[in-house]
């Protein structure tokens, strides 16, 4: 093979730039810590990373949703515990009212106590969480229980309780996504939970005021049923909270996993890169040294005398 001087020069230039290009690639990896900068550097990996990133984004929203829902449900739980305490207090008040030793005055005193409880219970049923009524279905901006005073002798006396006046009475479940295809209802039906309790409070108060022990006896049964309503709702809410807790646990775990997968796919192994970089540096040095030697070689012209 005939070798010309240009071939030697061209070849060493090519080899040097090849080697430098590899060095540059490694340097980019080392300085950015990323396996690739553009999708074209690693198309299939890039597609995977895209999917993982979207999954992570969605999953992070699930995490926030779960946490927010938990707050909402804790507020509901707190309200219902409070309502059930009131119901129990009302039951013992009613029992006292049924006692034969008590006179009409005594019953009126209990009635006043029950009236206080009624007002408290209305406040509970109209609980707000982050400025939203939690027992009002979809209409979180509308107060669920409104009161009417029809007694001309006592304008402060609540006589009628109305649930969402003029609005749909059926339960409007607020559902939230806590996982792919996994929804959870966060709210409790205000009507089935509180309506009987509030109405019974009115009835008990009125029976006590009227000194009507017969009616009071009936209402005592109703009060028990109302307590059951609240307890049932509390139980449902409690079991949902447990589901939510499990979901949160799962989401957190899966987020961690996705993040570690992402870093596996996106980030370089620094130890490996720096070893490769060192190696490539040596190769480059060698290529440069060889090139400098071949190019500074004397040719025949210089040796001739």
């Amino acid at each position: 093979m005939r070798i010309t001087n240009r071939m030697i020069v061209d070849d060493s230039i090519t080899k040097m730039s090849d080697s430098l290009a590899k060095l540059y690639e490694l340097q980019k990896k080392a300085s950015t810590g990323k396996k690739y900068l553009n999708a074209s550097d690693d198309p299939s990996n890039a597609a995977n990373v895209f999917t993982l990133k979207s999954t992570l984004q969605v999953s992070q929203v699930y995490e926030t949703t779960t946490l927010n829902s938990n707050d909402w449900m804790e507020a509901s739980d707190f309200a219902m515990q409070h309502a059930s305490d009131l119901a129990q207090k009302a039951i013992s008040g009613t029992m006292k009212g049924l006692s034969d030793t008590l006179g009409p005055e005594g019953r009126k005193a209990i009635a006043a106590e029950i009236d206080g409880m009624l007002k408290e219970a209305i406040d509970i049923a109209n609980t707000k969480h982050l400025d939203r009524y939690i027992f009002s279905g979809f209409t979180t901006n509308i107060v669920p229980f409104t009161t009417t005073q029809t007694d001309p002798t006592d304008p402060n006396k609540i006589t009628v309780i109305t649930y969402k006046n003029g609005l749909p009475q059926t339960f409007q479940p607020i559902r939230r996504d806590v996982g792919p295809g996994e929804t959870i209802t966060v709210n409790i039906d205000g009507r089935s939970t509180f309506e009987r309790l509030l109405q019974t409070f009115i009835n008990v108060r009125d029976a006590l005021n009227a000194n009507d022990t017969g009616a009071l006896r009936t209402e005592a049964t109703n009060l028990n049923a109302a307590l059951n309503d609240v307890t049932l709702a509390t139980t449902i809410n409690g079991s949902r909270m447990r589901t939510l807790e499990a979901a949160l646990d799962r989401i957190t775990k899966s987020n961690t996993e996705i993040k570690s997968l992402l870093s596996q796919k996106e980030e370089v192994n620094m130890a490996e890169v720096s070893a490769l970089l060192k190696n490539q540096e040596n190769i480059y040095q060698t290529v440069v040294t060889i090139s400098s030697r071949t190019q500074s070689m004397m040719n025949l012209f210089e040796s001739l005398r």
Partner: protein
Amino acid sequence: MAGFSGIQVALQALLSQQTALEITQNNVANANTKGYHRQEAVMKAGYPTRSMAFTNSSGQQNIGTGVFVDSIRRFSLDFYDVRYRNQQADNSKFSMMTSMLTEVEISLSDTSSDGIAQRMDEFFAGWQTVATDPDIVALRDDLLERTRSMTEAFNNRALRLVQIQQDQDLALTQRVDDINKIASQIGELNAEIGRSQGSNTQPNSLLDERDLVLDQLSQMIGITSHLQDNGQVLVSMQGHALVIGTRTFQLEATPDPANNNMVKVNWADDPAKPALEIQNGEVAGILYTRDVVMENQKKLLNDTVVSMMNRVNALHRSGFDLDGNAGVDLFVATAGQEALSFAVNPAVTSSRMLAAATETNAQGDGNNALAISAIMNSATFPTRIPPITPLTAAEDPVFATGEPSIRHFNSSRVTSLALEIRHAKVGASDSENLMKAMDEQREQVAGVNLDEEAANMVKYQRAYQAAVRLMNTFDEMLDKIVNELGLAGR
């Protein structure tokens, strides 16, 4: 040998060696000249003449008349030239594609943290967040902002694609001008080479120049060249002559109404002006990238926008906003330029108008928002009263491709671009290796080796010196005859 011819032979040797030395000198001088082909003096022994002789019985004998330079040989192999040019045309196509596509990839910046995928994810996650607390206005404001930045991301990418296409359009026009200039240059060189060949001398430097411009031409566009008997080269492209002898045929870059008025390349003499399908060279690289890859990216971006717009709009219209009003279209876009004109409906003036609820006057209802956040991955609408009309294939091109998920559709767009770049890069490096190998073959034959030239120099120098000595000898011999003969008896 007749007495005085010895001096003539010596003189011819002297002159021939001198010529050979001059050629060597020229080789050394052009050791690094691009396109230079090494030359060599082709020496021939002079034709013998009959001379009177006394050494054999016939009284005659043939003796050579020395040496002369018959021609100056130019080392070249047409075969490698043609192969080299083919590889070069291939390589320049792929290199052009690589550089253009890399620009496209950088402009689209799909892997960056503000890529389209990220913006879309943020948009749908925004709906998911609003679904959680549809009655918190701050979340809605955030969602509206995300919606705007997503539409801007699409506008921006589409605009950059159009700009790159326009830049390349200009580059294409310039290339066509260059090709025409080179074609006329080849025509002129053909004319001069034809003339010199007629006078029986080798126009080596003209041949070098013509080879060089042919190399340049093949870099721009794939050509076929054929060397004719008269020394002129015939250049053709897809069966149509570009240069015949001294005549050239011009290419033209004309705006093509069928292709957004971007230029096409056609023969100027063809009245119908059909676009040429150029397979090789930089021009082919530009055409392929501009008309196939970038158009495809634009189309995929538009498809993404159309599907997203129609899916979201249909659901959005079925819902109710924070004030209990029925939802309006969330997005608007101009047909045919969806990605470029994608925008939030100007009628949506506040985030309260985002229709998150499925029922009127239901502030806490986020079911529609939830449905919208899910529509990215599904083409079926949830049951509504009245039911939402399913989208047609034209309204939902993403689903028409058999891919329900807009997210996947987008990542396959990115992957398809990445694979095109991959393909171009591999093609460029493969053809570069072949091209280098071809160039090496060419260089092996045509290149200058300085050691060789040094050796030749010494060779010719010694021969020159010997010829001088020879002439001296004859001179002395003649001196004897002229000055010393016939002096007897003086």
